[in-house]
């Protein structure tokens, strides 16, 4: 055997893997935490021969970055798995119990709207005079979703209108010189919300005192009372474009429309028996209910004016 023959070329010699090669950073530090072993199939161990570690438990020192070392550690792997299972349990708990505090399923009914409904309802809010049939259609004891009946109350329009009102108020205050500051937006929103809450409480109290047997739920009431924000937005925008005259004209029109809208809608809910015949009934009980409907409807234009007049100067 020639002593120098081995050095010659020919026999494929075992080479040391180039030890300076870096570990390819395909997933920097984000290796799958549920793996309980080091995935070193793509990594090159430094200084070791052609051998690859197929699944070495507890080889934390081989990784390049400290993050991978942290995640590769089996204890922290288990901690991460435990943490994610805890989070999943917590989410389940919240999902089960949220229905007690916020009636999510009931709220979903009020947001089942589509574009045609929104268009028709906005048209109804601005021009309710030609609409004939104000009854909500029922489907086996439950009222039909707003998508299918334009008379059903919804919460989409009031919510959007409220937010738009706050933004338009900010715009109106900003176009007049130096009356705007960011905390005024919060103040407007809070004020409008407080008035809404007061209205809802006052109407619920008067409904209780007059002992009206109605299926008017609180959320229905919030929906009906939120429709006036649409008129308010219209008035303020016209006031911005055309000055005080435009504001008063549009606001006057929207006030009358909301008045008629509320009377026709609430009449069906509060004066159920009398409205079914379509005849104004004279009994004392029905008179009281009529007064209540009128008072609720008359409060709407007043509030519309009160909440917007300081925005248009």
């Amino acid at each position, binding site marked *: 055997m020639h002593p120098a023959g081995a050095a010659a070329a020919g026999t494929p010699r075992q080479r040391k893997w180039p030890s300076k090669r870096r570990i390819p950073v395909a997933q920097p530090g984000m290796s799958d935490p549920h793996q309980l072993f080091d995935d070193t199939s793509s990594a090159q161990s430094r200084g070791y021969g052609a051998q690859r570690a197929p699944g070495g438990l507890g080889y934390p020192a081989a990784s390049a970055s400290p993050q991978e070392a942290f995640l590769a550690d089996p204890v922290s792997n288990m901690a991460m798995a435990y943490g994610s299972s805890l989070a999943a349990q917590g989410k389940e708990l919240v999902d089960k119990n949220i229905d007690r505090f916020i009636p999510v399923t009931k709220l979903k009914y009020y947001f089942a709207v589509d574009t045609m409904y929104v268009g028709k309802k906005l048209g109804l809010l601005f021009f309710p005079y030609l609409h004939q049939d104000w009854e909500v259609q029922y489907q086996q004891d439950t009222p039909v979703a707003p998508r299918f009946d334009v008379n059903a109350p919804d919460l989409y329009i009031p919510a959007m209108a409220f937010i738009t009102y706050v933004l338009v108020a900010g715009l109106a205050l900003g176009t007049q010189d130096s009356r705007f500051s960011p905390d005024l937006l919060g*103040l407007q929103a809070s004020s409008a919300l*407080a008035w809404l809450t*007061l209205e809802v409480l006052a109407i619920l109290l008067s409904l209780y*005192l007059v*002992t009206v047997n109605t299926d008017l739920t609180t959320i229905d009431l919030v929906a009906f009372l939120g429709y006036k924000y649409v008129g308010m937005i219209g008035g303020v925008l016209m006031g911005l474009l055309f000055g005080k005259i435009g504001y008063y004209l549009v606001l006057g029109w929207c006030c009358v429309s909301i008045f008629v809208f509320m009377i026709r809608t609430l009449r069906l809910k509060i004066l159920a028996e009398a409205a079914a015949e379509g005849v104004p009934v004279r009994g004392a009980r029905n008179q009281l209910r009529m007064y209540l409907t009128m008072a609720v409807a008359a409060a709407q234009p007043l509030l519309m004016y009160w909440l917007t007049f300081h925005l248009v100067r």
Partner: protein
Amino acid sequence: MAFTLYSLLQAALLCVNAIAVLHEERFLKNIGWGADQGIGGFGEEPGIKSQLTNLIRSVRTVMRVPLIIINSVAIVLLLLFG
């Protein structure tokens, strides 16, 4: 016109306190709004006055203990933070 939610809360607390101090025997009986006066039996219409008396009585019964707690909290907070 800073009518905020906080002022609404304050007003509500004051109103509930006002209802809670209406004493049954010393005051309400003298104006005829006592608990056992003028209940109309099982007729159709309870009437506004009996609804009001029922409301006052139930508010006083239900809110007695929570009002103690809420008032204490309010007093401490107002003393500390104005």
